[in-house]
């Protein structure tokens, strides 16, 4: 029982990342009708926003350590962050420690900016072009973005730890009546899940309860009519693109303490997030979220030893197998709308 609860937690956690990326992808599909292969790259750039900020905060100058030498025989240098000089040693250390959460503030404007520039500068010209052309241009863009990151940050993963307050695990089992120590779960992963829920909730609330959101939803359903009513839907869609980029970017920022970011992490998630979006059903935001969590949980269960023992290799293919089964039984995914991206 406790094993199953743990795997559900794992699944929700993995699902959070899938759902956040798929949510943005669906927003772009739904509003602009564009197949955005650069969406994984946006997730990756978000993660590197966190890396950049933590590097900026820990920018240091060198102070010679008297009496010691390094491996080449030169005087040994010690790094002292500028933050220590500005804020004092204690506050400086705390700020560096909290680099990842602070990056949220940094990443939102950056990601919205990147999103808007991308939409205005490139994607805009591809609305009327075939999906194939959209794939080629966004894939090209994804490669360019990832190579730029590789050029500046190298190919190795870069450790970006969570604030020390969140290191360690939470005894989840003790809360719900299990023996202490049986169900423990890392704080940061719980934070990630909560964060995902908040972001998803905020996006839905924004679309559901604001006039802006109402217009966007109307535009998703019938763009032409909304345009005929004299509403500048293009401008709103541009903002939605920026928003989708920000959602992907924030998913990336918060993901960095879970796994050290590297330049190709976007590509690793790209295919998976497309599967999630399609399984959820094209054009359906709740579908994308539902599919994200569903696939995350199934993936977790499939990696249990007991399951692998029955079906060897199931952990390798479970997501794709489930995708095939769902698409064959439900023609438009879990909650897809008729006629979206079917031709």
């Amino acid at each position: 029982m406790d094993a199953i609860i743990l795997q559900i937690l794992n699944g929700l956690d993995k699902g959070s990342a899938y759902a956040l990326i798929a949510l943005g992808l669906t927003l772009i599909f739904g509003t602009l009708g564009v197949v955005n292969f650069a969406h994984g790259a946006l997730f990756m750039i978000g993660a590197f926003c966190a890396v950049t900020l933590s590097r900026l905060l820990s920018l240091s100058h060198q102070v010679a350590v008297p009496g010691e030498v390094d491996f080449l025989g030169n005087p040994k240098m010690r790094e002292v962050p500028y933050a220590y000089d500005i804020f004092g040693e204690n506050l400086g250390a705390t700020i560096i420690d909290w680099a990842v959460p602070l990056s949220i503030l940094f990443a939102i404007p950056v990601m919205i900016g990147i999103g808007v520039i991308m939409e205005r500068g490139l994607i805009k010209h591809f609305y009327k072009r075939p999906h194939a052309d959209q794939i080629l241009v966004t894939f090209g863009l994804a490669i360019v973005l990832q190579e730029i990151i590789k050029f500046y940050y190298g190919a190795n993963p870069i450790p970006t730890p969570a604030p020390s307050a969140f290191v360690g695990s939470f005894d989840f089992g003790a809360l719900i009546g299990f023996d202490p120590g049986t169900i423990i779960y890392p704080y940061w992963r719980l934070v990630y899940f909560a964060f995902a829920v908040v972001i998803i909730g905020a996006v839905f609330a924004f679309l559901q309860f604001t006039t802006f959101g109402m217009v966007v939803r109307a535009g998703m359903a019938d763009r032409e009519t909304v345009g005929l009513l004299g509403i500048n839907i293009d401008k709103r869609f541009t903002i939605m693109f920026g928003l989708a980029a920000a959602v992907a970017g924030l998913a990336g920022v918060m993901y960095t303490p879970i796994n050290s970011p590297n330049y190709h992490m976007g590509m690793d998630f790209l295919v998976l997030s497309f599967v999630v979006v399609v399984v959820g059903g094209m054009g359906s935001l709740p579908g994308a979220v539902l599919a994200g969590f569903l696939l995350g949980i199934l993936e977790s269960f499939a990696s249990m030893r007991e399951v692998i023992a029955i079906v060897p290799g199931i952990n390798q293919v479970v997501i794709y197998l489930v995708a095939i089964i769902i698409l064959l039984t439900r023609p438009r995914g879990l909650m897809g709308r008729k006629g979206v991206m079917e031709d």
Partner: protein
Amino acid sequence: MTKGNLTRRGVLKTGAVAGAGLTLPTYLRAQDSGFTNAPTGSTVTLGFNVPQSGPYAEEGADELRAYELAVEHLNGEGDGGMMNTFSSKALKGNGILGKKVEYVTGDTQTKSDAARASAKSMIEKDGAVMITGGSSSGVAVAVQALCQEAGVIFMAGLTHSNDTTGKDKKANGFRHFFNSYMSGAALAPVLAANYGKDRKAYHLTADYNWGYTTEEAVKSSTEAMGWETVGTVLTPLTQTDFSSYITPVLQSDADVLVLNHYGGNMVNSLTNAVQFGLRDRMVNGKQFEIVVPLYSRLMAKGAGENVKGIFGSTNWHWSLQDEGSQAFVKSFGTKYGFPPSQAAHTCYVQALLYADAVERAGSFAPCAVVEALEGFEFDGMGNGPTLYRAEDHQCFKDVLVVKGKENPESEFDLLEIVEVTPVDQVKYAPDHPQFAGGALGTCNNGA
């Protein structure tokens, strides 16, 4: 302006009367020299085939740096590095057999197809007489087979799977790097000494060849010490989040977790394992421990704080104090400003060993080189006295058991040497079950 590397084509050209029209076709198979890409001009071309894109790009870049340094030393530039400490004194710093060393580079992308394409272009287009490099066993095995077929020498870079000199060994291929078996044999006694003989191990293993051989090696060595293996689970290569593989460890009664992962897999699985508090765990009154059989400094950097105190093995480390290592670290550090990785070391040594073998054989012909390398004993290359065994073309030398340093002094100072396991302890018979199957075949001169 012109790059003066004399390739097979260049050589053929000199035979033609300048400006003359058509000459008679020359069959590749009927070259006078009797072997593929025989260098006849004043230079010789080597092919450095390393991952420049993909997850191991950083290791590939370090390998390339080492090769450039080796070429410099072979051509008599720089401070000579390990050539001064190498026990064989055949190399004189005037290139190889008096021919200036030139090189071509390629990108393996850590894919066997791309690696072979790149190696083929070096052989067919650039006239390379030796191919070296690589950062994964899949690539090493694929390129080794290609070199055997084409009749050039392959000096493997970083490849740790038993198969490279086990079931997939080839006469034209040589490996200086250590292997899974040696990791297991070196690690087990240290683990038993530090963690006790009564331990229950749980393995997470990358689901491909290297993972299988490493799991098998570590499992059999630790079981011989009295450990019990309570579970082994295979994880997909493309896995990034290992949480669903880590939580079952919490449920088991295991008190040691062995992560048979490398590269990005290792960084992520170790990070996740530490996240789930495994290192603070007590099981059966014992402190829970994590072991990473194959360490690499570049990967340790990716895992950050999480490597502290974790045992593993490596082929070489820059903090070694012997003459050879110091000479190499000094010339590498002077040129690039930071110490070399183990990948750089093995590649540098391989380049020197090849050049020395050619020099001693007096010929570039692969069969002559193979003969010179087989059973060759040397010293002064950073690993103590070393033997290139004739039966499987594997180097036998001391193995380092290391652990993550508690108080690193720089971003390169991440591992500390716990023990230098003497070579006798990691030696095995050529027909050991973990290396069974396959045949060396005979050396191939190609043309």
